[in-house]
């Protein structure tokens, strides 16, 4: 197994690390280990949930997104906009936000929420059709949050069948752009670059073609927090000047209703879906708890689960600029002012559905291959050894050994990646001696305290 400082989703900056070990405990896949006091390694699969970025007070862990430089210089820049962006600006309507992006140099601004609307309709249609046949595994799980899908592939492989087999909104959007926008520029010989404007560090992986072929159109992900200061200025000028909105030949480039921002909120996806019983769960810890319950056969009466690994849904994405509660208040205000409205006629979506336009591009098997468990299986003897080690170590989960908890430490020892002596309760270091996380051990008896 390779030990690395970076994953496809996050980067570690050793010079900034203070060794506080906050990141150690939050990682849902227990992939972080601390070595040599202020250096972390990613030893297992990173699902790109962003929990460590949020936990790191020193800013030593950052997303692999790219800062927005030279947008539209020498290429056609197409922005694929997450609805979270609209919630960052309390005074601007979604269309003004998109207009602001065009001022920044983007030639096209694609509104993702319209594809979410299509997805919601298609998902409800799929569930409705399966309700009659009684063949489907209940409950279905929303495929919208990519971190959740990766978490399922990694830790809950038996639930992969529950992930709704409808193409994700981002994939719908990317396909539509590649089929309809890019060819027009390709014939003119112009280079097209796709920019994903995102609240989460989850896009990096999808830039690589699984087959290893070079992508003809580079795809870049930009964090909303990186884009925010510039965009704010552009929007402020727009709101004072109000230039005419230029004509466009692509109908997904504008956005006029508050539906757009609603879907960024937790529960927003199921709010406008025609499903009989659905639940929205947000936050990493609760998501894992509910996935465990579903795996144990609970909630078979629920039709659809909306999972988001971030608190308050995508609004709480680690790369969003405005705090989740303020963003939520902005969304609620927008809903109050502009109300809800369906933008695409149901017949159109139904026709596309029957043509099979919502069939997913990746099978669960691909997901297992990409995000499945990579560690070799433990044998029964090794499992026994882990239990024996757990009896030896204190079991307090102090993290001084550099592993997130005692069981993971014991597993590392059995796999030969850690030494039992790393546990400071097994081998107490001298008072002056420092352990891996830099914590100096104090005498427990209290004699040395003043």
């Amino acid at each position, binding site marked *: 197994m390779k030990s690395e400082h970076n994953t496809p989703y996050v980067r570690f900056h050793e010079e900034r690390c203070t060794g506080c070990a906050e990141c150690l405990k939050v990682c849902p896949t227990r992939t972080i280990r601390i070595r040599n006091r202020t250096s972390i390694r990613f030893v297992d699969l990173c699902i790109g949930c962003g929990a460590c970025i949020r936990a790191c007070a020193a800013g030593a862990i950052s997303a692999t997104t790219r800062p927005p430089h030279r947008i539209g210089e020498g290429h056609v820049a197409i922005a694929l906009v997450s609805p979270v962006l609209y919630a960052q600006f309390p005074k601007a309507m979604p269309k003004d936000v998109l207009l602001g992006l065009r001022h920044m140099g983007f030639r096209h601004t694609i509104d993702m929420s319209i594809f979410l609307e299509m997805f919601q309709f298609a998902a409800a249609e799929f569930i409705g059709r399966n309700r009659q046949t009684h063949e489907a595994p209940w409950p279905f799980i929303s495929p919208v949050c990519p971190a959740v899908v990766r978490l399922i592939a990694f*830790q809950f*492989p*038996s639930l*992969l069948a529950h992930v709704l087999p409808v193409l994700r909104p981002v994939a719908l959007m990317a396909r539509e752009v590649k089929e309809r926008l890019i060819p027009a520029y390709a014939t003119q010989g112009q280079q097209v670059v796709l920019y994903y404007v995102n609240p989460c560090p989850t896009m990096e992986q999808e830039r690589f073609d699984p087959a290893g072929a070079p992508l003809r159109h580079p795809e870049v992900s930009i964090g909303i927090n990186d884009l925010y200061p510039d965009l704010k200025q552009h929007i402020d000028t727009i709101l004072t000047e109000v230039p005419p909105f230029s004509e466009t030949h692509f109908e997904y480039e504008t956005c006029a209703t508050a539906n757009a921002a609603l879907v960024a909120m937790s529960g927003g996806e199921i709010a406008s879906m025609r499903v009989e019983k659905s639940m929205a769960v947000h936050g990493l810890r609760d998501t894992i708890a509910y996935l*465990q*319950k579903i*795996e*144990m*056969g*609970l909630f078979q009466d629920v039709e659809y689960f909306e999972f988001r690994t971030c608190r308050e849904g995508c609004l709480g994405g680690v790369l969003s600029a405005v705090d989740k509660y303020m963003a939520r208040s902005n969304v609620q205000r927008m809903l109050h002012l502009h109300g809800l409205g369906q933008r695409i006629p149901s017949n159109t979506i139904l026709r596309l559905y029957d043509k099979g336009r919502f069939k997913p591009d990746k099978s669960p098997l691909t997901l297992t291959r990409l995000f499945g*468990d990579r*560690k*070799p*299986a*433990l*044998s*029964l*003897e090794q*499992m*026994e050894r882990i*239990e*024996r080690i757990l*009896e030896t170590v204190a079991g307090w989960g102090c993290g001084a050994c550099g592993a997130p908890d005692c069981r993971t430490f014991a*597993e590392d020892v059995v796999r030969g990646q850690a030494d039992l002596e790393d546990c400071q309760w097994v081998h107490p270091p001298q008072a002056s001696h420092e352990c891996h996380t830099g914590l100096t051990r104090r005498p427990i008896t209290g004699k040395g305290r003043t």
Partner: protein
Amino acid sequence: MRGVDLYDHPPYARNLADGGSNQTVCRYMASLKKFFFIKARDFVHAGEASIHIQNLLKSMHLDPALIRRIAICSYEGEMNAVIHGGDGILNVNIESNRLTLEIIDEGPGIQDIQLAMQPGYSTAPEEAREMGFGAGMGLPNMKKNADDILIESEPGKRTRACMTFFLGLTKEVQ
């Protein structure tokens, strides 16, 4: 399969003595035994033993469908002890070719096992039903998912449910 006498079993006795602290491990040749203490009417912590077992099996890379069947059975058994039984233990034994789950509780016992095996038949109290449990599917689900099941009960005294899973062999889940 040898039955375990509830009161003579040292780990259980030790668990009771120190107020039911979590788990104790015995070792035998190439087998992993774990005991979990189940507290009656503790709906908050119910299911934790099942999650623990699930995580153990996942690190052994068993077939996901098999893990799911085992998880469903251990959870249903655990919930039975929580809802109906007095306190009890969940006893899991993993061997190279099979896994046995044993749930023993000091509850009121089952009057008519045949009747209890029928889907929808439930004697769960109102408080459990209000929380969404006790739909009368516990024993039928266990029977459906286990490769072999044995339920013994002395009405008024205790119930012992013993389930066996053959590792490496698959059984279709409906």
